[in-house]
């Protein structure tokens, strides 16, 4: 009885939302579900448009690049800070301010980037006061720029404190400082120690969490909505734009793209489960 109820709730809250949503998206994208007054008829045209229209494919490529580079940037900064911080950390506790960034939502982080890096933001004002630039217009464009530098910086800012805590925790638990001492007394160079001792412990061990964070950035929405440019936009924005468009013709393209994204996420999640369960069994 309890198991049946648990199964029913699982299906209701977990299985139905993703699969019903995906089926609907697939149905609309293949023309099997008609929109407005349109009669349903099977078509591949929306998928063809999606793959042939450069904008959509560009957006997918850009999103993957954005996520990968943001995670790599954040992980590199955290890794670089690891040694100096470990040396100054006698116990196993971290002071409160390390956790402050974890309490900042993406939307507030985006607002902060906006207030700090916009043409009339804090950095631009400081630069003017210091005489580095004459006025606001000379400040480099970092917000709503075409490359999405502001978006990238905000994601790095959000991810790096989390990675730092994660890496510090792994390094402390595995007593990295002792391993480092042993390796160095055996004659290993610091580059070798970083590659053969620190990297396996802090990066490989935390790989599932890094992948989850990568997937989160793939779905980024509010940050590029506020800070991104108009030319290249991340997947979530393009999908929502197409779906909310006034033209009935572009809506199925939005659904095709969303189905494509959903299947991609499913495959990535599958990889993640494999990775986690291997760790769990070990």
């Amino acid at each position, binding site marked *: 009885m309890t198991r049946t109820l648990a199964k029913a709730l699982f299906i209701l809250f977990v299985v139905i939302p993703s699969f019903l949503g995906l089926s609907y998206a697939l149905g609309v994208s293949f023309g099997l579900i008609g929109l407005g007054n349109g009669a349903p008829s099977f078509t591949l045209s929306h998928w063809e448009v999606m793959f042939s229209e450069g904008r959509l494919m560009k957006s997918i490529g850009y999103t993957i690049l954005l996520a990968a580079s943001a995670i790599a940037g954040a992980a590199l900064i955290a890794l670089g800070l690891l040694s100096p911080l470990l040396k100054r950390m006698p116990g196993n506790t971290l002071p409160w301010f390390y956790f402050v960034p974890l309490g900042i939502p993406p939307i507030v982080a985006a607002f902060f980037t906006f207030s700090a890096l916009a043409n009339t933001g804090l950095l631009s004002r400081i630069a003017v006061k210091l005489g580095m630039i004459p006025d606001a217009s000379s400040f480099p464009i970092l917000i709503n720029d075409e490359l999405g530098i502001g978006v990238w910086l905000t994601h790095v800012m959000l991810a790096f404190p989390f990675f730092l805590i994660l890496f510090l925790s792994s390094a402390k*638990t595995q007593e990295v400082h002792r391993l480092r001492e042993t390796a160095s007394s055996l004659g290993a160079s610091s580059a070798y120690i970083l590659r053969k001792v620190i990297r396996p412990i802090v990066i490989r061990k935390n790989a599932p969490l890094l992948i989850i964070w990568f997937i989160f950035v793939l779905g980024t929405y509010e940050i590029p909505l506020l800070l991104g440019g108009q030319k290249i936009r991340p997947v979530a924005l393009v999908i929502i734009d197409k779906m909310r468009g006034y033209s009935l013709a572009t809506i199925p393209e939005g659904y095709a793209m969303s189905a494509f994204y959903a299947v991609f996420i499913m495959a990535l999640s599958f990889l993640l489960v494999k990775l986690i369960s291997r760790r769990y069994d070990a």
Partner: protein
Amino acid sequence: MMRKYTPWMLMLFFLAPILLITLLAFSGSWVYPSILPSFDSDRWMEFLGSSSLGIKPFLISTVLAVLVSLLSASIGFFTSYLLTGKARNWLLWLCLIPFCTAPVILAANFQYFFILLHLSASTVGVIIAQLFIGVPYTFLLFSTYWNEEQLTMDTAAKTLGATPFTRLLRVHFPAAKSLFTIAVIQLFLFSWFEYGMTQYIGVGQLKTLTVEVFKYTQEGNTTVAALASLLLILPPFIAILVIRKVRIAHA
């Protein structure tokens, strides 16, 4: 030399958002190129006093986050009992899908059914939509709980004649209490921080703090956006100050 100051620079970097937002929240105007904004306390009173701004979105966000966190933690814990079975990896995979999909896209895909069921643009609709992420999340969190030890305990209680429901309530819930608390806190933050899904399903009708922050930032209304942001980050910030120090390793 640089290394000595690393922790201090980090502290400054980590606190910078809160410092700037607090400064802006108490300011009347921020004329270029002055670095510090001018102070104006009336603005703050105006914001808190007005019913459409300030306190109302704060209350909506609070109620929403409390309901979503308690409901998803309870349902997630109850359903995670299924992990005692054989289909472990499949169940984990099914839960990772909604957890990994961008909330706004998840919402866009099932919005049609929400419209059919008259759940669109309603508070109940937004709560249900957030449960679609909260429940799988709790399920995933509890995947580490159902280990060999708990399964043995379960069998022992079963042999002594406890029904599955009694086992869950009297054996597993007390043992899982700390994990349950973690789930509630994280889900509270998830709901408290959520924007895309709330905006899509709520169709702008449900004005939570995140929806307001977005609106004011886009309008270029920096000081009001800062006020709403401050209300948004204050509860987690106070919680961190209360906890003070966190143990991160077990040596």
